[in-house]
């Protein structure tokens, strides 16, 4: 299984020299598994992904499965700029949650109304198949994508790709802090939790359990989180608490804050590693970088 990061940033694209290491494009991750192309979210990173498909496969005959965690801008804004979508002969399966009143096609077409964008969803000449997921999506041949609701205003979903005993998880926009019971709530959201198994949404620990790789929203330092609680994103200690409990093997820190330069993301990675050192645990922890490919 190959995992490639095409966009690692949260909220809004942040190009420039200060973000050239981790990248400025918004959320988009590609997974190649079992001869299938899977795409997680359509942030601005999907544009370069689409161009790479043309270079590798030619313009037609591309088939991919696109999973949308939720439809906040930074997760769909690249969709109208995904070149293969406009070419007849390409096929895309698009998955959005069944838990919303509006279908994923309706939500995607919303940002392509003429007031926002010159081409409509119907102008995309590729063959599109929109699917509403509940608990999991069976892609055949033993490849299953399990889904889980996360902590985010307006709802977001995480995805666990199961293939030949391996598990890779994409779980962004997930304020794990909200699920953790705090020792001192009056003092704000701090490290120092009481048994998270009793407080997290009950499905979440099994969802993460033993994953070979978790791509996790870890947008804030603990200090920042004190000012940004309920914004829908997690702090370092909350992420590390849950990943430790779930005994995951590798952790890609993801959904970097647009205010964070490469240096600040480096500091978040160090903060995460310090947590592991203090607790004498080993999880291969790193910052997700645009262009990085991992073999799982």
């Amino acid at each position, binding site marked *: 299984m*190959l995992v*490639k990061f095409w966009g690692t940033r949260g909220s809004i694209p942040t190009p420039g020299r200060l973000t*050239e*290491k981790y990248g400025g494009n918004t959320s988009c991750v590609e997974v190649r598994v079992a001869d299938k192309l899977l795409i997680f979210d359509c942030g601005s990173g999907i544009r370069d992904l689409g161009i790479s498909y043309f270079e590798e496969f030619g313009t037609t005959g591309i088939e991919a499965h696109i999973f949308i965690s939720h439809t906040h801008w930074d997760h769909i804004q690249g969709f109208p700029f995904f070149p293969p979508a406009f070419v007849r002969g390409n096929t895309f399966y698009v998955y959005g949650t069944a838990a919303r009143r509006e279908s994923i096609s309706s939500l995607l077409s919303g940002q392509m109304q003429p007031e926002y964008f010159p081409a409509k969803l119907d102008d995309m000449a590729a063959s599109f198949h929109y699917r509403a997921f509940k608990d999991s999506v069976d892609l055949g041949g033993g490849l299953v994508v399990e889904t889980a609701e996360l902590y985010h205003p307006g709802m977001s979903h995480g995805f666990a790709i199961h293939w030949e005993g391996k598990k890779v998880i994409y779980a962004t926009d997930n304020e794990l802090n909200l699920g953790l019971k705090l020792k001192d709530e009056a003092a704000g959201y701090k490290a120092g939790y009481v048994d998270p198994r009793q407080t997290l949404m009950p499905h979440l620990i099994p969802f993460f359990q033993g994953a070979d790789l978790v791509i996790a929203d870890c947008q804030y330092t603990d200090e920042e989180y004190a000012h940004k609680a309920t914004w829908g994103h997690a702090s370092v200690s909350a992420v590390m608490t849950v990943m430790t409990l779930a005994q995951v093997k*590798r952790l890609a820190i993801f959904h970097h804050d647009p205010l964070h330069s*490469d240096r600040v993301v480096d500091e978040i990675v160090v903060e995460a590693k310090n947590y592991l050192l203090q607790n004498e645990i080993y999880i*291969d922890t*790193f910052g997700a*970088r*645009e*262009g*990085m*490919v*991992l*073999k799982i």
Partner: protein
Amino acid sequence: MSAEPQVMTNASSGDAHKSESDEQLQESEETVVRTRDETPPAATKPERLMTRRAYLEVTMGAFPGQRFYLGQCDHLIGRSQDVDIPLPDDSISRQHAKLEYRNDEFVLVDLGSKNGSYLNGTSVHECPLRAGDEIMIGNHALQFLFEAVLSPSK
């Protein structure tokens, strides 16, 4: 619009704390602001351009401090003597990894090596390199860096 150049000086008056030599210096520094349609004077010397060149420096391994300068092309790293960056180390595959020159940057690509290629401590299949990155291959660590170079005068 007139092409008459504006001449400005930054000499100031009324500053009691300035020494005489300061004032002389400031009066002699004239800043000429040219309008857009004026041709700048021909340079007296050919310009030398500042560019940068990438290199890998061995920080751990057989020859610490050794530098491998990287041209704008692909470079093979491995145990074999036939590669561009040979590293004498039994834990390194004969052709272990490649630095691909792609879109004006270097990308570390593992070539299916037995022991893997690590970037800043994590195993990667592929990753674009940035200044300061540390590549770990076998028992060797190599830091990816740039140095500034001036193009030669003509």
